[in-house]
């Protein structure tokens, strides 16, 4: 037995839950506060006490049909919108976290696999064909999955898939679907479907309804729950291939399981609110700064932070001016500088190592 000074002393009680617990309390409080503020804020002026009373009544009698305009605005417009924003933000953040772990690269995000682009093509095609509502959402989801299958097909060489080929195949498939979307925009009616496609691609929660919440919920919840279940496995998948395999991880099928889960999350999100960039890359990093890299604490932090961030951004988008500010504009304005900083730090750290 090789011993060092102090080694024999019983291990000190680890304070592993001290700081993270405080951070989690802070994050949850932020999320709840942002949801509450968001429900009270908007273009139609509803006094805060009235909004809270409406909410309380809505919670007490969930089946009741709201009749007055302020009730309907709070319960039928804002509530589903806030909920959808929170779920989409959480889903994108958790999907980004999972992908960054699996790719061992902090700079990837859900659109790296071409899922978002495939989903976008599905939506644009539906708009061109004049398909709205549930069938549109079905097409979005289907083509998001099709993109993933395409990536899988392309990247599988000699029965094996390498991370690099997956990224490259994602790039190829993503570019192809982006080109197809451009083609659709080219042939779209500039008076009707073109602005619809452009707006839809920008991403927005302005079309949120309880119906859409119900449509997005299963995929987002299931996907997030699956990733939560995989939280320890993600730590292992973040290891080098040989290390992970030596620890009993079947890296390839397990990686694909994560991709599939990400496709379910991103497809569900794009189907109801279009492509929303940056969340999937910025939030995981912010969460990592707060709670560290262990997916067991990182995933829940990303969920709460993503939800709060999305709710705040969307509240700004819908209530700052008479016009809806496109979400992508705000997320890019916030996200791009953060990404630039991360990029510099990432390469500086790599140089130092």
């Amino acid at each position, binding site marked *: *037995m*090789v*011993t*060092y000074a*102090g*080694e024999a002393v019983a*291990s*000190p009680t*680890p304070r*592993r839950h001290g700081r993270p617990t405080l951070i989690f309390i802070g994050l949850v409080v932020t999320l709840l506060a942002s949801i509450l503020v968001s429900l009270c804020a908007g273009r139609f002026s509803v006094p805060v006490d009235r909004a809270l009373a409406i909410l309380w009544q809505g919670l007490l009698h969930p089946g009741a049909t709201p009749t007055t305009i302020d009730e309907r605005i709070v319960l039928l417009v804002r509530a589903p919108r806030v909920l959808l924003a929170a779920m989409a933000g959480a889903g994108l953040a958790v999907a980004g976290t999972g992908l960054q*772990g699996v790719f*061992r690269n*902090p700079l990837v995000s859900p659109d790296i696999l071409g899922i978002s682009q495939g989903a976008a093509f599905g939506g644009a095609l539906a708009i061109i064909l004049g398909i709205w509502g549930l069938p549109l959402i079905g097409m979005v989801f289907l083509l998001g999955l099709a993109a993933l299958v395409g990536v899988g097909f392309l990247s599988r060489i000699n029965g094996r898939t390498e991370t690099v080929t997956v990224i490259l195949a994602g790039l190829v498939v993503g570019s192809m679907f982006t080109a197809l979307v451009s083609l659709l925009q080219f042939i779209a009616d500039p008076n009707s479907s073109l602005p619809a496609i452009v707006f839809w691609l920008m991403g927005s929660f302005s079309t949120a309804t309880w119906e859409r919440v119900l449509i997005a919920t299963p995929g987002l919840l299931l996907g997030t729950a699956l990733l939560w*279940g*995989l*939280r*320890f*496995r993600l*730590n*292992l998948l*973040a*290891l*080098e291939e*040989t*290390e992970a*395999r*030596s*620890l*009993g*991880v079947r890296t390839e099928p*397990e990686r694909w*399981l994560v991709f599939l889960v990400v496709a379910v999350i991103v497809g569900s999100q794009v189907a109801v609110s279009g492509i929303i960039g940056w969340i999937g890359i910025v939030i995981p990093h912010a969460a*990592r700064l707060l709670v*560290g*890299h*262990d997916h*067991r604490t990182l995933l829940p932090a990303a969920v709460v932070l993503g939800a709060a961030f999305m709710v705040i951004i969307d509240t700004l988008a819908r209530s700052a001016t008479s016009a809806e500010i496109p979400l992508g504009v705000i997320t890019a304005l916030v996200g791009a500088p953060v990404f630039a900083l991360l990029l510099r730090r990432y390469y500086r750290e790599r140089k130092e190592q």
Partner: protein
Amino acid sequence: MIGLNGATVRFGSRVVLETLSFSVPVGRSLAILGPNGRGKTTALCAMLGFQRLDAGSRLAPPIVGYVPQTGSSNQRLKAVDVAVMGCAARLGLFGQPGPADIDAARAALQRAGALRFADAFFDRLSGGERQLVLLARALATGSPALVLDEPGAALDLANQQRLLALLDELRRAQDKAIVFTTHDPNHALAAADDALLLMPDGPALCGPVTEVVTPPHLERLYSVPMRLVELQGMSGTPHRAVLPAFAGARAA
């Protein structure tokens, strides 16, 4: 029990391993010696199942405790969280390590002499400390086989000493089949029962360290004149060491 049985690996027309056979039972420790590019890493990968064999088969338990040279993780995890990954195979896809697994990880850290930095971040540790944590992770798998890729190769002398002492201690416990690769025959002398010499000009030599790690064999292995010297160890016990007799300014 871990080993290879008639394993052949070719890269294109180049034969890297040719019908290589050896096996290490639980309680024995094997050092694989060879100059760079002679197939040490290939043999190691073949044992672990990461290298497709053109012929022959591998002999290994389902999980092998594997200690890479440097941990690849760029994730900021605590040493104990790295060590607990050794429990992964038992936990399955959706399993989470519980208190018992964390205790096992801490026990492994203790055995590897790494418990004092159990709660430090892995990526902030020195190279030597990291290797101890990775060894603890391999121990935490509970596997009867332990495979180490050039342990100590990237470490300074003090850390090499520390690691070799640890390896020797694991060998003496006789509860694992241990295989490690190295380019330094002294590592074999310090911590192995048997040695496998991947000769450049013929079939591999395998046998007890005392019989195989001899100057004539090593000269063929490395193409460098070698000398065996007897030394007085720190505790007074005799030690053996091999030295390359390099030509040069002060060469005798």
